[in-house]
């Protein structure tokens, strides 16, 4: 899983029915020092994150398992909010 910073939100009415009710956020992947890594992406949100939150997200095929009740067509899903990050070294 990787770290990310929530930047904003994307709305879409016409979408795959399996994405109904799934919130879509713009997220900037970041490193352990909160520096941006690459381009911002769209991620499915399963934890009700908010603008500015530091989150961790799962990429690739595993992102389809983010919701308990159904598999979603997602390659990036936010699966947790970071309360605190302790970088030891």
């Amino acid at each position, binding site marked *: 899983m990787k770290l990310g910073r929530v930047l*904003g939100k994307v*709305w879409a009415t016409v979408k795959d029915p399996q*994405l109904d009710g799934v919130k*879509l956020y713009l997220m900037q992947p970041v490193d352990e020092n909160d520096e941006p890594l690459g*381009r911002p992406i769209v991620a499915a949100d399963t934890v009700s994150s908010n603008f500015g939150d530091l989150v961790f997200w799962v990429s*690739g095929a595993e992102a389809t398992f983010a919701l308990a009740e159904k598999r979603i067509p*997602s390659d990036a899903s936010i699966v947790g909010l970071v309360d605190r990050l302790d970088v030891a070294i």
Partner: protein
Amino acid sequence: MELARVEGTVVSTVKADRLIGYKLLLVNLLGPDTTATDNYLVAVDNVGAGAGEVVIVVRGSSARQSKGLADVPTDTSIVAIVDSIELKGKVVFRKSDPEKKAAAKK
């Protein structure tokens, strides 16, 4: 998932049997404020997107998770048509409504 703009259609007669019946579109990946990155991909359209529309594409094996695409050889699928985008509290993109535009002209 990534933002992209539909920039054209890809017409193909000779293709994998499992791709028959699916619409293939040429999409240009976008930054969060919908500026083009000039990275082009061919995507299976699963939502009826049209030229010029901003869409969301799913890449990798997750692309086959979209409805009805489980057995389709695709690694890029269009799964949503974007209405609006909010970036850092500001609306940076809003889809233009053709009906509203026509009404405004009258």
